[in-house]
């Protein structure tokens, strides 16, 4: 005779077996789902990276300052949203892959290497005038100067102290220095116009003030603060996708914290002791006071536009440093209308200095200098095509340094910074 308790025992075993069976089915289902999800994620990552690879190439599919959805391989399963837009002197690229509601994207700032020419330290126009060197001037790298060559000079009680003029090759330059890339100049000039900001979120600071703290992602629309007068950036902390335009002047105080932002104004003054990362473009005067530090990748530039005054200047004060590019640009050189850069003593520039006009260099540039001619201003006078206690050292610029697309023959676009 079987006892009644056996039924309960049998029920318990059935339940156990049912649970084990259910667990196996659940495990099988979850592993299937995991596999599908991981394959999908891998596909999104591959497509995002493929999109970036495409944007970094010399492709014609996505024009500058535009975006488009592209089916990468024509299978209908690899769609990416590709975007290119200029960001000051640089370009931002973005690749966003999507599939069935899932998206994955990457955004980066691009720069250009100087791989084509890794040795040139100095290029000046051939104005049939020798380059006069005084004091402890050091030129390290190849130089392209007038056929007339170098000359020792005596200025401010200092004769040239070096044993050789240049630690590198001396080559003859042409009548004009290499022009800036037209695409870059077009992009820089457009920055001052308000017409291109149709796609941006525009805030008039005459009505609404710039907030104390603002971080805007590059995945969002650009926030553009525009003022008709003078803008004072005193205690603000601004970072990311922000563009500030003033009709008269922008003053950046020491306490201000700026990262990645763009400044456009006729006059820009960066006060003593400021430290940050920005791109500043002026059409009249740009002054960096003493001990200003602009971290890589920063750009300071003066650009001549039709309403600029005859003399436009970029001044870098004593003890300052710039990592990136220093640019003074005018389309055509005029003897009476000049652009000039003045780099004071104890300044350190790491990158490129480009001037369509004059350059007064009294400090050290680790990288490439390209200017029409040098003008040395001292207490005793102004000297044409002279260098006093200046250092230009190309060897200190690493091969992986990336700069704006300054020249037309710059080779390869590369990722400068992830955003």
């Amino acid at each position, binding site marked *: *005779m*079987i006892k*009644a*308790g*056996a*039924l*309960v025992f*049998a*029920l318990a*075993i*059935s339940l156990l*077996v*049912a649970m*084990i*069976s259910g667990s*196996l*089915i659940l495990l*099988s289902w979850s*592993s*299937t789902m995991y*596999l599908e999800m991981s*394959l999908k994620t*891998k*596909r999104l990552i*591959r*497509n995002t*990276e*493929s*999109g970036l*690879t*495409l944007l*970094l*190439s*010399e*492709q*014609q*599919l996505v024009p500058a300052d535009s975006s488009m959805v592209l089916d*990468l*391989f024509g299978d209908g399963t*690899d769609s990416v949203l590709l975007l290119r837009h200029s960001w000051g002197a640089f370009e931002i690229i973005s690749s966003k892959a999507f599939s069935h509601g899932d998206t994955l994207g990457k955004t980066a700032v691009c720069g250009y290497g100087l791989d084509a020419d890794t040795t040139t330290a100095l290029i000046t126009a051939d104005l049939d005038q020798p380059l006069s060197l005084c004091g402890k001037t050091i030129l390290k790298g190849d130089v392209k100067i007038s056929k007339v060559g170098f000359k020792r000079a005596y200025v401010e009680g200092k004769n040239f102290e070096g044993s050789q003029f240049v630690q590198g090759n001396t080559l003859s330059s042409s009548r004009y220095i290499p022009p800036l890339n037209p695409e870059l100049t077009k992009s820089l000039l457009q920055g001052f116009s308000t017409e291109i900001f149709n796609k941006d979120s525009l805030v008039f600071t005459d009505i609404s003030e710039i907030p104390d703290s603002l971080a805007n992602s590059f995945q969002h629309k650009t926030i553009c603060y525009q003022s008709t007068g003078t803008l004072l950036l005193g205690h603000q902390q601004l970072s990311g996708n922000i563009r500030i335009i003033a009709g008269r002047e922008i003053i950046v105080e020491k306490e201000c914290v700026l990262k990645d932002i763009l400044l456009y104004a006729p006059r820009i003054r960066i006060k003593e002791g400021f430290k940050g990362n920005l791109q500043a473009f002026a059409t009249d005067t740009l002054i960096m006071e003493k001990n200003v530090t602009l971290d890589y990748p920063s750009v300071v530039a003066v650009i001549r536009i039709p309403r600029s005054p005859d003399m436009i200047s970029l001044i870098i004060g004593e003890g300052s440093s710039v990592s990136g590019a220093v640019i003074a640009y005018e389309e055509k050189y005029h003897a009476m209308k000049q652009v000039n850069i003045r780099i004071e003593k104890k300044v350190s520039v790491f990158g490129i200095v480009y001037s369509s006009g004059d350059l007064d260099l009294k400090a050290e540039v680790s990288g490439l200098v390209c200017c029409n001619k040098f003008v040395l201003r001292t207490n005793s006078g102004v000297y044409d095509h002279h260098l006093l206690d200046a250092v230009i050292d190309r060897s200190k610029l690493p091969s992986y340094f990336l700069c704006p697309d300054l020249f037309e023959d710059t080779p390869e676009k590369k990722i400068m910074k992830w955003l």
Partner: protein
Amino acid sequence: MAVKTKLKAASLLEALIAMVIITLSLGFGTMILSGILSASPLHERTRALHHPAPTMSTEEYKGAPGIAVETKNVFDSKGTIIHTEKRLVLKKP
């Protein structure tokens, strides 16, 4: 365990037999399901992806000079392509 019941021994036996049948059915069902899953293309794909034998091929990408499409196939034990990965790469000079 003391269970008081008024069930008759015959019906109890029937219930027990039914339970045993259910248990065996579930057990066999699980085994069969497991067998089906292990033989399924998905399982095969999982196994192949964990032990890939990829082949590479590159071809020009239209509209972008200097870019190539890199294709990587994964085959199952029968030599059938069960998974394809495509990506764009910069062509090596």
